[in-house]
């Protein structure tokens, strides 16, 4: 009986070895396709995009007409600049956005943030990289700075999604990415659950620049995932300007559109 057992085991091993060999050969001749970070399906990649065509088509990109200051799509006969920009002054000179925070984009960003998907965050960053290729507004940028998280939040989340998104962008622009320069010095509440006025109060003095020399006299691009009211980014821009930056532009993956703007 013991002999029989032994033979059985070696049989299995031989089978496994053969299968592994066969799979290695297959892989040699037919290398596996990369899979889309969003839907997981294999696809033929258009470098450097990490998302498949199907997923890209589902993303609601920003389409003209847009507000010239903040890239928010203008709807229902709204005049340029948009209502938000008229009523508010921001510390950044220009805000840009790639997509609208809605539908599939909302799902993706939520997943990248809360489902422990650093790969997805970086994959979304590749959209930045492609978008930035023919974007004249980014020509004078000297440095890319992602909006930081508070250390406590960073510890619980494990990664900073804005930083991961900014990495492919900085590589595509061939500009340095400064990660330690700007810091969040106050643990703010989550903006998503606050009203407009509370949001503004919440972000006041939340940021500080650690290394002023790094940004002094430079045109800085701030990168984040979502912009709704713009207060967080404005507060960060203020800190950068105080540290001596020449100017601050803002680029976000998605721009929040208030329901009023969507209607009609």
């Amino acid at each position: 009986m013991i002999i029989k057992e032994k033979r059985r085991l070696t049989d299995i091993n031989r089978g496994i070895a053969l299968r592994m060999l066969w799979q290695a050969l297959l892989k040699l001749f037919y290398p596996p396709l990369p899979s889309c970070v969003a839907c997981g399906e294999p696809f033929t990649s258009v470098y450097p995009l990490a998302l498949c065509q199907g997923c890209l088509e589902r993303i609601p990109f920003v389409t003209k007409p847009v507000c010239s200051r903040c890239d928010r799509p203008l709807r229902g006969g709204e005049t340029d600049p948009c209502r938000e920009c008229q009523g508010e002054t921001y510390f950044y000179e220009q805000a840009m956005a790639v997509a609208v925070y809605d539908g599939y984009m909302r799902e993706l960003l939520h997943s990248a943030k809360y489902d422990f998907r650093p790969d997805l965050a970086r994959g979304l960053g590749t959209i930045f990289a492609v978008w930035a290729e023919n974007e004249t507004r980014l020509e004078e940028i000297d440095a890319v700075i992602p909006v930081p998280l508070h250390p406590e939040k960073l510890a619980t989340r494990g990664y900073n999604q804005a930083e991961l998104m900014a990495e492919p962008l900085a590589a595509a622009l061939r500009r340095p990415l400064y990660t330690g320069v700007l810091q969040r010095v106050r643990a703010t509440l989550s903006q998503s659950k606050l009203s407009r006025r509370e949001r503004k109060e919440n972000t006041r003095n939340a940021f500080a620049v650690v290394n002023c020399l790094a940004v002094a006299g430079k045109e800085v691009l701030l990168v984040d995932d979502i912009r709704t009211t713009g207060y967080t980014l404005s507060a960060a821009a203020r800190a950068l300007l105080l540290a001596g930056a020449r100017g601050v532009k803002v680029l976000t993956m998605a721009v929040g559109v208030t329901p009023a703007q969507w209607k009609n």
Partner: protein
Amino acid sequence: MLPVTYYPIILQKSGEWMVNLTSDPAMAWWWAEKNEYNRVWSWDRPFPLWLAERIRENLNLQAQAGKAGFSLRRWRRVVTKTIRRHGWPGGGTWVPVTGPATDLTRYLAASAEENTLQIRKILPKVLLGRALTPQELQRALDRAGVKVTAYLFTIALQELILAGKVDLVAAVGLDRWGRFYCRRCGERERLCTERLTGSPQPSRICSACRTLGVLTDQTPLYYWRDEQPRGEPPPAPPELVLPTLTSWQEQAVTEILAFWRNPEERTMLVWAVCGAGKTEVVFPVIRAAVAEGKRVLLTVPRREIVRELGERIKKCFPGLPFSLLYGGYKAEVPASLLVVATTHQLLRFTSYFDLVIVDEADAFPLYNNPMLNAALDRVVLPAGKQIYLTATPDRSWQRRAERGAIAVTKIPLRHHGQPLPVPHLVRTAMPKKERLFLPAVVRDFVSTRKAQGRKGLIFLPTVEAVEAFSTHLKKAFPREAPYIHHIHARDPFRQEKVERFSSGALWLLVTTTLLERGLNFDRLDLMILHADQETIFSVETLIQIAGRVGRKADDPGGEVYFVADKITPAMKAARNAICRMNREGAKVRVKANETK
């Protein structure tokens, strides 16, 4: 989520020494004091878990090689070589730990506390046979009724690790060839590499088993490494309340029990027609195994069915405590002999069970899923046995059965002894996406429901088709519309709708393959539209769906229609398989009548 880093340490007693990992050398020093180790060395800087684990392994290998005795210089070379080999920056050296580097008062107070003692008692029971992350382990302890703070928890675990009772490995670790793989699901390809906070080098994250909780190469997995204490066999075999079995079920029961007693057989296939009562057939063997103190696992791929199975076990084994585990629900009885779980939960188990019973072994997501099949093989002890229950074994299973590689028992008759309803294959023009209309067969099927007083199920291949078809049907039959509904996996009210259907409040349900198995409705006819879509309606699926009809003894008949644009080989094969089972069943029935 901030990663915990680990220091390799060497503990020396007169003549003997051992290597281990600790997150805090001071704690290790204290433990060494207590356990009469007189010297402790620690590496001067910590490593991420996957690397620390590899260093420990290499040091242990050196120690086992038995070359000369203790030499710190050699151990230093081993460590530097290992970290250089894996591209980790920096060097370092062994430093003696001579006293507590950090304040130990908090630790001492905690170590002596009542709760820690309680953890030490309950932890083996919770951890035995499992591979758990700290979070999972802590939740398991919570469910076992031990409330602990994170600090106490770390201390208790650390002591067990130092004592060599619990093994600590990285969830995504290195294999023998230095490649990363996920220790929970075995994935090698779909590991994404990202730099996480607090570690200077990128770490690997398994994206294959993310739904069960994220694993990285810095997540610890705890195993029970000490010898596995066997639970005492219960003083008396558990009470078993079974409905009376038919003679052909009895036959299967005796065959399964013979298989259980035969030490040479390892795998058995119970091949029973839909509605034969195959789940009851394995209850006697569960009883026999539990009476011997053996550990039994009963597993099903689907969550809905596992819930129902738990109910049935509760009814049939009134006095037997068992654990019921599925996604989002854990009712654990520490060290229970019977575990009922979905197949996905097996990923959290290590080699533990003497008997593994897989119900609905051909169902999604188990079928053709290497991850779950590997898990099924892993959880069986080397001398353990597996029983697969299915109504539709695929070709490879049938071939293995014919070859005699596995034991087989067949139940070709339903419990009421009537043959399976044979499906009618109907070829007719089918509605398309662009042009919805009702074929005459469908129109008749729907309109005769009420007159006949029978319920109807209509299966369609996709969710979109279900929704479109259901709205069209309601328009076409405005008077019957309140009794018609549709259901699919994304439907939040699906449980409620199924209940309404089985109670008779609804009498026509349009559905996807969601209702393919596991549910019993009385007085049912059914219809599969677009049955020629072989990717969804495979032979096995068609047989399963056809098996929904006529399951009750008071209504053994029923009509099954496969409706499609063309008759495919799969449809024919399904009908032939049903006819073949019916012929075999007829023989069994004749034999049963003769013995009477």
